[in-house]
């Protein structure tokens, strides 16, 4: 049960934090048409997050009813129950289970695009499998979200190609983005303990099944974009976001996002 809740929260946190990051672009995009496009993706991701959080809240409330101790903080809303909002707004950094990739700063358009591309490719294969999960609710959310993610992947792939094969400047900018973000892609495929448990129960997606597809997609698009994988010397030391060990960025995201709920607790908004 706890593994299912943690896994659901992990899916929700990924979607929320990336959606939040993308929404920072709203009003500041490079051209009106693309401002609208990235805001759309933000909306899709926040919508996915809400579906996952609502499910997680239901699971938490059910398990608390049965006398179990709430597995995750965030069950202390206005009515003492967990809701999508208590989970998003009342948990601290260490409770968030998103990957480090999604919390990285927006940087320039190249970095934002590449982050989206890496993540959408991951989500695409993940949801393809998740829609066959033994857990019917997760399967249903995955099936519904897959349509959105298919578009995100197409949109971001096209932009990676445009920037890679565009001008000298765009090429050097996206190369830098590759250098900056590549280290965060390992974590996508390193299962956290709750993922292993949930995978054994037929709920979560076995990440080893999707890694090669993901890598092939990245390779194909990189080829088209005239980009190469960065060479790596030594082993980068990174925390693992899924286990609550984040980069410093997440704290700032939460400080901003949670401000009202923290400053005026126990209110309706």
């Amino acid at each position: 049960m706890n593994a299912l809740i943690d896994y659901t929260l992990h899916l929700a946190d990924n979607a929320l934090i990336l959606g939040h990051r993308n929404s920072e672009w709203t009003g500041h995009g490079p051209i009106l048409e693309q401002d609208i496009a990235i805001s759309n993706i933000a909306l899709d991701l926040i919508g996915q997050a809400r579906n996952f959080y609502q499910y997680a809240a239901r699971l938490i409330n059910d398990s608390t009813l049965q006398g179990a101790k709430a597995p995750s903080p965030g069950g202390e809303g206005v009515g003492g129950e967990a809701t999508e909002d208590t989970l998003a707004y009342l948990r601290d950094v260490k409770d968030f289970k998103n990957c480090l990739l999604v919390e990285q700063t927006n940087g320039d358009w190249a970095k934002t695009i590449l982050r989206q591309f890496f993540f959408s490719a991951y989500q695409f294969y993940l949801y393809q499998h998740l829609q066959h999960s033994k857990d019917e609710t997760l399967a249903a959310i995955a099936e519904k979200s897959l349509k959105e993610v298919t578009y995100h992947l197409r949109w971001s792939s096209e932009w990676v190609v445009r920037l890679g094969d565009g001008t000298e400047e765009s090429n050097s900018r996206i190369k830098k983005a590759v250098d900056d973000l590549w280290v965060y892609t390992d974590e996508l495929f390193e299962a956290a303990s709750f993922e292993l448990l949930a995978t054994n129960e037929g709920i979560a997606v076995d990440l080893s099944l999707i890694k090669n597809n993901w890598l092939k997609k990245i390779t194909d698009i990189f080829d088209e974009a005239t980009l190469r994988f960065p060479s790596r010397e030594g082993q980068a030391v990174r925390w693992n976001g899924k286990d609550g060990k984040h980069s410093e960025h997440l704290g700032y995201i939460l400080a901003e996002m949670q401000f009202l709920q923290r400053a005026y607790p126990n209110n309706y908004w």
Partner: protein
Amino acid sequence: MSNHDWPLWEIFIRSKNGLDHKHAGSLHATDAQMAIENARDVYTRRMEGVSIWVVESKYIHASNPDESSSLYDPANDKPYRHPTFYELPDELKNM
């Protein structure tokens, strides 16, 4: 280069199967594919469409309004093209 707009495209949307594509407006994009994607985001945010056509604006040829009398007026004396031309009994329904 950045001082120039991307090309302008005219967007036509079919809101429901069985209906004609209707002009929805225009937007800027570098190519047809991007124009279709932008149109999806800009003009179908509320599920307004099932099919999108895009045409680069410079390829649209418009009739000259000054010649409109020669183009459209003749149709005015062909009332038989209009359904109300035919007098039918009131009992006849749904035609």
